[in-house]
């Protein structure tokens, strides 16, 4: 069950890793933004582009490295859980040369652990067995409590009565007897037997890390009995960077003990496996069998490992810089390319938009396209910040800008300037900073809300009535009922609108509303009927103006 879960997690991890590697390779193949987007680069929002560049160049390699570490870790667990069925091997089955690996059974728990290197998912015992198998296959006496044979040396399971005979028999036939220093009585019996009955040259002691020198002292006592003095030898029991092996003791042709430290090279684990570190540490011992062990070029490997890790980040950082420069250049080029368009659009736009809002100017300032509208002083409250910020007012203004231009704008400002007696009070300006993506949404909103009746209804809700539109003329009611839009104004006594004035007023309203084809289209489609009533305060009607849809 545990292995099943690990395998599922491993599959997910590998799938994600492949996905990210695929994305990385694809982004490398596609190259720069210019190649990826081509003409569409002009439409890419600057910050969107920078975000994409960061994701591609920095986040992607980081994710690949993180997922690789996770995958290796899961693979390591999966590998260790994959034990074999309990072996039924007998000592008579062993033919040819072999190596006998002896240790305390309680140490199996330590040697089953991963060696904690990136390039190795194997356990410490497997790595040691791989190195020793350069000489001959490795066999060990199995722990009777094993449910499955652990990975590493091939196990022989023998009865409690027979194990001493088996160990002795195999030790005498083995090419090498490897003794991993332990603390149990059985192990020390094996040491005593090996030192007494077999050729010392065949013995290799594996010294694991330890907090005390107790085991070493016992070993030195046994060796002293064999006339081998360990006192002049430097035998390490200190903890190494990887695994639990600290050093080795073996005997040369003259029967003199030699020790060799296990050297765990720092910052090479991505390239140099634990097994190769063991090979390097056992170079002298291996030489006896004709095995040549080249010392690892540690500096070279270290540089290589740094380069491998740095590759992703250096390349990523360079790409990031290159992409941001590309985006900046593209942004500037876009502005330059459309400067003429901006001037042309500026000239062709209607000056009087609606509700007294006057088109002021459109100009380019660095990478911003600035559009300035002005409105009369009395509309100040109407265009309060909250109102300007709403999508409705923004979309109603944006629809005057041609789509061809909008699509090519990278940064976009709309300024609603406060208009006092033909002077623009810029201190009161309100800037709407709109990104192209928001602009597109606003346009869609504008298109879906193009109904004149809806627009007027929302405008009326926001108007503060009564509203004095000019001296002596006050708007007291503005409402939309069905298709009828009714404005009721009160006039001061003494004021009078004659037929000529009424006609002038009608033409002015039609001209204003006709400036936008969409409005005219909407009026005709919806059959909007405008009614303007001018009356005195006592309710006496002075003039009534009706505008039918057909008149537009």
């Amino acid at each position, binding site marked *: 069950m545990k292995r099943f879960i690990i395998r599922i997690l491993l599959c997910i991890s*590998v799938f994600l*890793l*492949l996905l990210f590697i695929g994305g990385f390779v694809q982004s490398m193949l596609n190259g720069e933004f210019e190649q990826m987007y081509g003409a569409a680069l002009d439409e890419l929002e600057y910050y969107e582009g920078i975000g994409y560049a960061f994701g591609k160049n920095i986040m992607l390699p980081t994710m690949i490295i993180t997922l*690789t570490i996770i*995958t*290796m870790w899961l*693979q390591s667990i999966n590998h260790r859980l994959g034990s074999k069925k309990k072996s039924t091997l007998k000592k008579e089955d062993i*033919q*040819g*040369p072999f190596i006998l690996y002896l240790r305390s059974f309680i140490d199996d728990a330590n040697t089953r652990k991963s060696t904690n290197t*990136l*390039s190795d*998912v194997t356990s410490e015992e497997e790595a040691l067995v791989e190195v020793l*198998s*350069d*000489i*001959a296959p490795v066999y060990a006496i199995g722990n009777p409590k094993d449910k499955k044979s652990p990975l590493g040396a091939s196990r022989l399971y023998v009865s409690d009565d027979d194990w001493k005979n088996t160990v002795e028999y195999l030790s005498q036939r083995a*090419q090498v007897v490897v003794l991993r220093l332990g603390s149990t009585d059985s192990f020390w019996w094996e040491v005593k037997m090996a030192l007494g009955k077999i050729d010392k040259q065949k013995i290799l002691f594996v010294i694991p890390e330890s907090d005390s020198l107790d085991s070493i002292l016992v070993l030195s006592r046994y060796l002293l009995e064999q006339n081998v003095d360990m006192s002049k030898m430097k035998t390490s029991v200190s903890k190494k960077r990887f695994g639990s092996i600290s050093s080795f003791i073996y005997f040369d042709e003259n029967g003199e003990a030699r020790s060799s430290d296990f050297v765990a090279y720092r910052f090479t684990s*991505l*390239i140099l*496996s634990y097994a190769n570190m063991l090979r390097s540490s056992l170079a002298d011992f291996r030489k006896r*069998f*004709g*095995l*040549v062990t080249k010392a690892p070029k540690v500096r070279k490997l270290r540089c*290589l490992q740094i380069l*491998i890790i740095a590759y992703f980040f250096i390349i990523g950082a360079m790409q990031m810089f290159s992409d941001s420069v590309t985006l900046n250049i593209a942004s500037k080029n876009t502005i330059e390319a459309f400067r003429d368009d901006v001037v042309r659009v500026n000239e062709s736009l209607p000056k009087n938009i609606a509700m007294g809002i006057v088109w002021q100017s459109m100009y380019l300032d660095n990478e911003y396209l600035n559009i300035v509208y002005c409105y009369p002083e009395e509309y100040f409250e109407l265009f309060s910040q909250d109102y300007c910020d709403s999508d409705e007012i923004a979309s109603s203004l944006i629809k005057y800008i041609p789509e061809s231009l909008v699509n090519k704008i990278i940064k976009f400002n709309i300024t609603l300037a406060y208009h006092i007696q033909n002077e623009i009070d810029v201190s009161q300006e309100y800037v709407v900073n709109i990104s192209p993506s928001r602009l597109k949404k606003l346009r869609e909103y504008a298109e879906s809300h193009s109904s004149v009746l809806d627009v007027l209804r929302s405008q009326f809700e926001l108007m503060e009535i009564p509203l004095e539109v000019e001296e002596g003329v006050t708007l007291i009611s503005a409402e939309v009922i069905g298709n009828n839009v009714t404005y009721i104004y009160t006039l001061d006594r003494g004021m009078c609108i004659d037929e000529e004035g009424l006609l002038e007023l009608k033409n002015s309203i039609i001209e204003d509303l006709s400036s936008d084809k969409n409005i005219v289209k909407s009026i005709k489609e919806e059959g909007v009927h405008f009614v303007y009533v001018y009356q005195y305060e006592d309710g006496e009607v002075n003039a009534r103006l009706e505008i039918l849809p057909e008149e537009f």
Partner: protein
Amino acid sequence: METITLRVYRKKAFTGMAMPYAIKIDGVKKGTIKNGESMEIELPNHNCVLMVDMVGNSMTLHKLRKEVVLFPEYCSTGVIECEVDTKNNWLGGLTFGLLQAVGKTTLNINYNAK
């Protein structure tokens, strides 16, 4: 027995199928074998080291290579058989041999082949 014959057989395997193995005895190249091929080598009558080394290993970080000591005194038939097998390491393959070797070479020695 004055001379011993070493019969090297490369088992067909997917990993490294395109690349031959160089067969070296005591560091001296004796020939190459491709997937499914075998070759015979005369061995000196003393311990020697057999190494199978995939061609193109110098280009990779993790090598497909294995060496083993041969002990002729264990051979009674005059023929030592060595089966070269290349096991796939899918994680090494997925990472293009960057983190691990793409496979693992194993040598199975039979000292009393017929």
